[in-house]
């Protein structure tokens, strides 16, 4: 169905959450709304639009423009409808001669200082000022344009994505309020008074030099052309729109892809999207240009050896070539000698098909996913303790939290739209405990100061969490009746003996963790007795050799304090990639069928065997690191890798590269020639999220539609490519639309039983489990009882990593992300987001830098036990002495050349967060970097030859 472009409906002021209903009359129409609703909104809900300029339903009403005046029987004057709340029996008139005159007078003043270039203005036809002038019937401007005005004010074009043209500004302050209320950055102010007043970024800086993080919230709400997307200035107004889901992070924001033909001209955050409610970050909002970047490869390619030039071929030839080689490998080396890696960036339906092809077509269970290297400990830890491998809440539930723990996560950089919600709640007074080696932005940012920052030494999350639990138990702060009713009491008693041991007391863990005992005690008391306690954690928890233990310790803390099973509480993993949750749900792990059911379970297996008409292997397959090991041993020879860049993202790069070189047939499906593709024999062109239909599942378990906005550039969406390969391998698949794949998933998976595209259309999005018991989904999990029955307190013994600092490697390196770049950077590096982060930097404390004679911006060598690389230094107190930090968005940085192959004991999730290193000043790139650059040149040359 074509959805013609129109601005999203705006009711003028936010929806009221009042419980009582109030009935009033507006223009003679009886209207019933919740108490606390504004007169403006009540009118809008009944189809009556009151003209307005400073009001929008994204922001609290402000009452400055005086265009929205109405008459209310029994009241004097003309109250502003945006700031007046409804009362029972109120009689409101929105139109009269007197009102009309007043509104025209106000408009006249605004327009007398506004350029009249509507016909050539970039927002012509999409401008609230223009609309309002029309609505109030403005026909002339008596004041002329000769007096003082701002018509010559200079445009600020510094931001790569939007311009600020002050000559068009009406100083309604919507932008300032959006930056405060919606985004929480406080980058804008109104400087000066009266005629002098103007919008100013930071200290009257250019936008790019200010604190602005380019979220676009101010641009969304600006009623004029003052703040306008450059893409709109270039291309003009969109003509149709497609509602879809962001393909970057696990927040899963909903967007309108606004189109002109097959060109995306703007991504506008969708107000009805429940994950984001109209907000976005710089990635989803602006960084979509990669989808049509010249580096896109849109034709399948093959080659016999990685030293050969690529040869462009038809889809049929590429698919048949792959099938032949895979069959030959299996014939020679056995059934288990091939496998696949599915992608957390692809849709649920695509991931489901890849694992189906492996299990039913390859005849083994050698399927794994990149969640192996991020949140596999979450799956293990939450399943063990609570019974389900997923977060417990909705994002919106944080609005009811009283105490929030953020651990090993950096939401303002990695999950920005959630961070904005969280910051809103913190500004309202909720308390914050940050557990992180670094002083992340939340520790101290405008209007927010963490109540406690526990600066753990990398690798010591478990003793920190154990100490928190110890204090709670020791001081009798546990939720006795909750535990008695909801948890396995026998196990709890055993755990109590364990955790009560004085070795877990903060005074005794202080030496290990570096967290002062007094702070830790106070933080434990706050979490246990401060009301609703919610925990949000990220990869700083999971990517350790004790990642699974830490996740279980987090779940223990939440159960201990009764903080699971209602609004405002819970245990919430912040997922890295857009569809990590979904790829795990869809059976991407080698031991589990979709819905987290073990492959050895005969009943489940039979269900799938019946549907797929095959016999399934009952034994788990290889995990990604096992695949690499087996490849080096010569037992694993063929790999199909969809939408992942393991050569860049997985630890110990030299080891990974050696494994990839050992493969006889590596098939990479991606939108670019990524680092892994440089080792490939077959390249299947992937489709970006704009080119396909499907669903993503975000960190709230929310399943949202991805809708095709443009046709796949290569002619096939990823699910179609997998289907073709499966068919060539003799594993029949015949779907005409991803909705049919979802129907199959629903038939086979109890937690998805009630999910269908029709229902998604109707509800917008669905949080699983969705079945007969919960036909509209499950926003909050474990309400009356845990999914596993009784909550399980797992033992959380701390086993320190073998990766220790010593004289040779005295510093601990930890890794993370930055707002403007995403994961391995393949997408964001091909956008103007590079203007914020053109290279990965090494953060080092001034004390450590000085000791080594290192100054800001120097090139420094980073040596670990497994490798070395060279980065530029950023000397900062954000890291504490003894700790260094970098990001991994650029391949040339080789951040993973130095990370070790240590991994989580339960899941083999790599220990990215702890590497002992030495830092020294250097003058040239590392040997690995020199080799990488020459290999990169060679492979690009081989690609160019194919293209010629």
């Amino acid at each position, binding site marked *: 169905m074509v959805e013609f472009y129109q601005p999203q409906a705006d009711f003028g002021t936010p929806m009221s959450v009042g419980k009582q209903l109030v009935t009033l009359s507006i223009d003679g129409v009886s209207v019933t709304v919740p108490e606390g609703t504004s007169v403006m909104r009540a009118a809008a809900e009944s189809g009556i639009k009151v003209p307005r300029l400073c009001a929008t339903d994204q922001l609290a009403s402000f009452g400055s423009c005086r265009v929205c005046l109405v008459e209310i029987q029994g009241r004097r004057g003309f109250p502003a409808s945006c700031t007046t709340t409804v009362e029972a029996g109120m009689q409101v008139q929105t139109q009269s001669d007197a009102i009309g005159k007043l509104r025209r007078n106000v408009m006249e003043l605004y327009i007398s200082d506004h350029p009249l270039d509507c016909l050539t203005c970039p927002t012509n036809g999409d401008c609230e000022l223009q609309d309002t002038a029309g609505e109030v019937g403005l026909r002339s401007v008596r004041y002329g344009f000769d007096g003082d005005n701002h018509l010559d004010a200079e445009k600020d074009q510094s931001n790569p994505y939007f311009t600020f043209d002050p000559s068009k500004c009406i100083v309604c302050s919507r932008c300032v309020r959006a930056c405060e209320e919606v985004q929480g950055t406080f980058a804008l102010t109104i400087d000066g008074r009266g005629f002098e007043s103007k919008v100013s970024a930071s200290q009257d800086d250019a936008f790019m030099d200010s604190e602005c993080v380019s979220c676009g919230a101010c641009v969304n709400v600006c009623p004029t052309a003052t703040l306008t997307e450059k893409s709109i200035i270039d291309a003009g107004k969109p003509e149709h729109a497609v509602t879809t889901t962001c393909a970057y992070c696990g927040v899963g924001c909903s967007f309108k892809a606004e189109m002109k033909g097959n060109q995306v001209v703007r991504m506008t955050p969708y107000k009805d999207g429940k994950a984001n409610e109209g907000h976005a970050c710089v990635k989803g909002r602006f960084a979509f240009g990669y989808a049509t970047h010249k580096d896109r490869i849109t034709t399948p390619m093959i080659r016999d050896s990685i030293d050969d030039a690529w040869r462009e071929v038809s889809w049929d030839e590429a698919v048949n070539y792959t099938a032949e080689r895979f069959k030959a490998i299996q014939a020679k080396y056995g059934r288990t000698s091939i496998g696949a890696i599915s992608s957390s960036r692809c849709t649920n339906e695509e991931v489901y098909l890849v694992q189906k092809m492996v299990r039913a077509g390859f005849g083994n269970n050698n399927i794994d996913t990149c969640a192996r290297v991020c949140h596999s400990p979450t799956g293990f830890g939450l399943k063990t303790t609570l019974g389900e491998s997923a977060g417990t809440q909705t994002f919106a539930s944080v609005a009811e939290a009283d105490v929030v723990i953020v651990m090993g996560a950096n939401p303002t950089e990695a999950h920005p739209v959630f961070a904005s919600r969280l910051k809103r709640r913190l500004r309202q007074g909720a308390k914050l405990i940050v557990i992180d080696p670094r002083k992340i932005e939340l520790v101290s940012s405008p209007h927010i100061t963490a109540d406690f920052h526990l600066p753990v030494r990398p690798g010591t999350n478990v003793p920190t969490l154990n100490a928190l639990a110890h204090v709670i138990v020791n001081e009798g702060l546990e939720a006795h009746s909750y535990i008695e009713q909801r948890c396995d009491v026998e196990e709890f008693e055993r755990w109590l003996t364990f955790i009560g041991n004085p070795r877990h007391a903060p005074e005794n863990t202080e030496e290990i963790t570096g967290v002062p005992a007094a702070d830790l005690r106070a933080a434990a008391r706050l979490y246990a007795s401060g009301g609703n306690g919610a925990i949000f954690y990220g990869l700083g928890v999971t990517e350790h050799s004790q990642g699974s*233990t830490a996740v279980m310790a987090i779940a223990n803390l939440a159960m201990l304090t009764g903080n699971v099973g209602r609004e405002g509480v819970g245990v919430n993993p912040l997922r890295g990639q857009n569809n990590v949750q979904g790829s795990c749900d869809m059976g991407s792990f080698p031991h589990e069928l979709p819905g987290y059911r073990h492959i050895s379970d005969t009943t489940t297996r039979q269900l799938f065997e019946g549907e797929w008409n095959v016999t399934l292997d009952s*034994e788990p397959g290889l995990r990604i690191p*096992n695949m690499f090991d087996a490849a080096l*041993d010569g037992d694993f020879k063929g790999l199909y890798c969809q939408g992942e860049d393991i050569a860049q993202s997985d630890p110990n790069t030299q080891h990974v590269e050696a494994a990839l070189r050992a493969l006889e047939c590596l098939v990479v499906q991606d939108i670019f020639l990524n680092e892994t593709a440089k080792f490939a024999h077959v390249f299947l062109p992937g489709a970006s999220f704009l080119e396909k239909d499907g669903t993503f599942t975000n960190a709230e378990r929310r399943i949202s539609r991805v809708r095709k906005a443009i046709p796949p550039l290569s002619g096939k969406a990823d699910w179609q490519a997998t289907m073709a390969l499966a068919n060539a391998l003799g594993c029949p698949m015949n779907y005409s639309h991803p909705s049919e794949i979802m129907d199959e998933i629903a038939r086979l998976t109890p937690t998805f039983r009630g999910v269908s595209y029709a229902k998604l259309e109707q509800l917008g999005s669905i949080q699983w489990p969705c079945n007969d018991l919960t036909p509209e989904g499950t926003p909050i999990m474990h309400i009356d009882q845990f999914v596993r029955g009784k909550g399980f307190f797992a*033992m959380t*013994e701390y086993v320190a990593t073998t990766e220790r600092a010593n004289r040779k490697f005295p510093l601990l390196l930890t890794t993370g992300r930055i707002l403007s770049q995403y994961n391995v950077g393949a997408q964001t590096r091909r956008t103007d987001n590079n203007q914020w982060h053109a290279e990965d930097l090494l953060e080092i404390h001034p004390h450590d830098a000085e000791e080594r004679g290192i100054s800001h911006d120097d090139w420094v060598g980073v040596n670990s036990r497994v490798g070395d690389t060279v980065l530029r230094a950023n000397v900062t107190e954000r890291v504490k002495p003894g700790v260094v930090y970098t990001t991994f968005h650029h391949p040339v940085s080789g951040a993973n050349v130095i990370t070790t192959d240590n991994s989580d*004991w*339960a899941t083999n999730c790599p220990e990215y967060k702890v590497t002992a290193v030495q830092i020294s000043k250097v003058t040239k790139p590392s040997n690995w970097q020199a080799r990488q650059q020459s290999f990169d040149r060679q492979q690009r040359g081989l690609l160019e030859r194919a293209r010629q």
Partner: protein
Amino acid sequence: MSQPQLQRLIKMINQIALNMSANGDPKMVGYQVAQHLEKFWSPPMKNLITEQPIDAQMALSPIAQIAIGDLRRMQLAKRV
């Protein structure tokens, strides 16, 4: 499978055993470790470790040794 592969598996089992060590007495933990391996390891990995005669050279922790014995029994039981 090769010697380095065997060394890696031994390192993994020792690590699992150590991390589960607080769960109870060595016998019980050994059994839990065996269950973990049975649940998450692929057959070639399980075979490689159970087909080795356990000797002092292998640097297996006591719990890991119990686990391998239990895993061997689990595998035999499946074959019957």
